[in-house]
């Protein structure tokens, strides 16, 4: 046995006892088990839960929060937060549909994505350049972008090109909905970015100690801005997919979306302020939230009780994760 393999073995043995760093630690396994139990209970208690129809529904419903949560993960890893994703979703949908009257729909989509990128770049720039608190910067952007999008259009916009819906949000490849497939492609991309690129590793480290990263000769500002830009871009992308799935873009959409995304990241083991969070955890968090929604609806739980229970479930989820960690 060579030295390196010895080290590696040791590494994997230790993983079990050290939460955050490992990919498959106890907390994650417990979490996966909890989701599995939820699925089993649901499929026994409700005969429609495991139908193709319902699974397709769930897989489409979690796309928006999935994309937002992945972006939010990047930002939370740097120690930040992005409250402005909700309005970006709404604005992007309006642009992607409303501009179809003036240009082909791919161009409209490009404008929408560019807007998301721009908002993200702006957030990142203000935070990185002026060392402002991410919460307050993105809170301000949240208000401003919401104002802007209403200035752009105070009424819903409808796509004019039918392909916009049938190719993207409303499309299917075999039995699989296109938006879900897109999300499925983006998840490993983000994972690869975080784990196998210089920039991704820097993002992880910046959230823990940005001064140490800077002194290691890494351009902290660039990676910080990059994380916010990616988050804005993903939010805009989510907005395009949402509008194309619904066949309409409403200006009032997206309120509270940022909280859902943050909840998914934290339930998945993310730590606000940086230093914790994995793609697999986020996927679990998004899945858990979507399943809870779906199951509560299938079990016909009244709206207020749903809201009440959802709060409790979030609490139990973070408690359980803590206990096992």
């Amino acid at each position: 046995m060579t030295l390196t393999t010895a080290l590696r073995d040791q590494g994997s043995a230790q993983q079990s006892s050290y939460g955050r760093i490992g990919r498959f630690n106890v907390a994650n396994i417990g979490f996966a088990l909890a989701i599995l139990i939820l699925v089993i209970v649901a499929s026994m208690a409700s005969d429609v839960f495991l139908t193709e129809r319902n699974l397709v529904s769930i897989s489409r419903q979690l796309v928006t929060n999935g994309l937002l949560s992945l972006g939010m993960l990047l930002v939370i890893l740097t120690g930040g937060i992005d409250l402005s994703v909700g309005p970006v979703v709404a604005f992007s949908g309006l642009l992607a549909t409303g501009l179809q009257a003036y240009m082909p729909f791919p161009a409209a989509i490009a404008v929408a994505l560019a807007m998301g990128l721009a908002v993200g770049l702006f957030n990142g720039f203000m935070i990185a350049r002026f060392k402002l608190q991410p919460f307050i910067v993105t809170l301000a952007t949240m208000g401003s972008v919401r104002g802007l999008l209403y200035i752009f259009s105070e009424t819903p916009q409808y796509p004019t090109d039918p392909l916009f819906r049938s190719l993207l949000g409303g499309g299917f490849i075999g039995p699989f909905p296109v938006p879900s497939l897109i999300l499925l492609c983006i998840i490993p991309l983000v994972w690869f970015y975080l784990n196998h690129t210089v920039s991704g590793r820097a993002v992880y480290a910046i959230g823990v100690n940005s001064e140490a990263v800077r002194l290691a000769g890494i351009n902290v500002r660039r990676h910080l801005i990059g994380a916010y830009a990616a988050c804005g871009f993903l939010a805009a992308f989510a907005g395009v997919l949402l509008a194309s799935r619904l066949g309409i873009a409403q200006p009032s959409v997206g309120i509270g979306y940022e909280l859902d995304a943050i909840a998914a990241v934290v339930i998945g083991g993310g730590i606000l302020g940086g230093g914790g969070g994995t793609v697999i955890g986020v996927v679990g968090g998004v899945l858990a939230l979507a399943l809870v929604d779906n199951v509560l609806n299938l079990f016909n739980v009244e709206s207020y009780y749903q809201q009440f229970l959802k709060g409790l479930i979030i609490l139990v989820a973070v408690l359980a994760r803590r206990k096992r960690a």
Partner: protein
Amino acid sequence: MLEIINVSKSFDGNPALRDVSVTAAAGRVLAICGENGAGKTTLMNVLSGAIKPDQGEILLDEVNVAVGNPHYAIELGIQTVHQELSLLPHLSVAENVLLGKWPHRRVGWLVDWKETERRAAEVIRDFGFEGIDVGARVSDLSISLQQIVEIAKALVGKPRVLILDEPSAVLSAHETRLLFRKIRELSASGTLVIYISHRLDEIFEVSDNVFVLKDGLGVLSAETAKVNRDLVIKAMVGRSLDAIYPVRHPNIGEVALEVRHLGRRPLFDDVTFTIRAGEIVGMFGLIGSGRTDVAKAIFGAEPALEGEILVAGKPVVTTTPATAIAKGMALVTEDRKRDGLAMDCSVLDNGGLASMDRFAFHGVLNRARQGEVVSNKLDGLQVRPRGMRRPVRQLSGGNQQKVVLGKWMLVENTRIFIFDEPTRGVDIATKVEIYRILDELAATGQAILLISSEMPEVLGLCDRLIVMRSGRIVTILDRAEFDMEAVFAHAAGIETPSSTV
């Protein structure tokens, strides 16, 4: 008076203390020695109630204090100066000193600010530091004065047991002397003082008894007068160390770094010196003399406002660390917790942080190769415990320091190394290793600037020595001119007959 009986503690299954027993009497000074990670701090944390032991008890006059409740320990008169600074930087000195012991008027929940200031001032004055204004914000004090405030916190009310966990690491010789005076005063009046330090000279100077921990086991417990340096080292390290400093065979080449009239007032001004390839140049000064600021300026972390920097004879402009690294510089920062390490990240990520480009192709990392190279390097530095995925937070201070060294040694094409207090808080065996590494680096033609506050270290290792005072270079000495008294006089600004500026 104090009986530590069979105390054990492990973290995540790794034992930090194994069945440790030791006793100490009131009015004595007990020194605890051991390598980094031996368990000294853990033992003191048990005693001060910061953590609960897995088993065993600690009796203070027959009362078990090892219950994991700091409040209870303080009530019993156990006062602790923790190894990590635990001050609240944006609060006043007075408030920090009396944190948790706020004096109050009649009702228990009302703070009496006048009394707070008065008592804090009294404690600090009795300690010998009349100069510290108790109304000042702690973050405005220099690091060493902050440490004085930290110690003063433990002196409020007469402690029955005073624990000092490496209090001298950031103190100057003079401040250390005042501390020792205080220790003697307290022990004379019946306080048991527990003193932890990696500096054996201090141990022999101040302690009555010495207790040595190795890998969580108590391996030596004796009266200080009855043991000698070698015996203690042997107990700590498990073998003797014949030579602390490597014998230098300097092979000095071209000028690698030249600094001309560098300034960033008011921190430092008109700093001019050169370092040649293969040379170790020391930089000595009192704490706060501006050495770190010079290092940061050269490295582009906080760029200089005046002057120029030449690398291998060519002027360079270092505005960011990245540009400095590109010119072949590396800076091992003095405060590893604040500037050196991302504590929650893994050993691998920290060790590989500065050298990622080596393993990257268009920004995509070859993680397998990176892991292999980093772990080889850290293994060569004998970082313990091994395991690349462990967060560095869980390593002891000395091992953390080795990770920082490894990080910079992994960067390719480095010609100039700046070490800022590389041996602060590091045990004697690791120090010897770090000295060996410095010597080896120099032997491979690197130019080395060694900033240190430890006189023996700079005298033992350096080829030349820069002495700084108040942000200016007072003198630069060749090895032949090295003389402890003279260097100290320069640094402190005390006129001596031999001083030449």
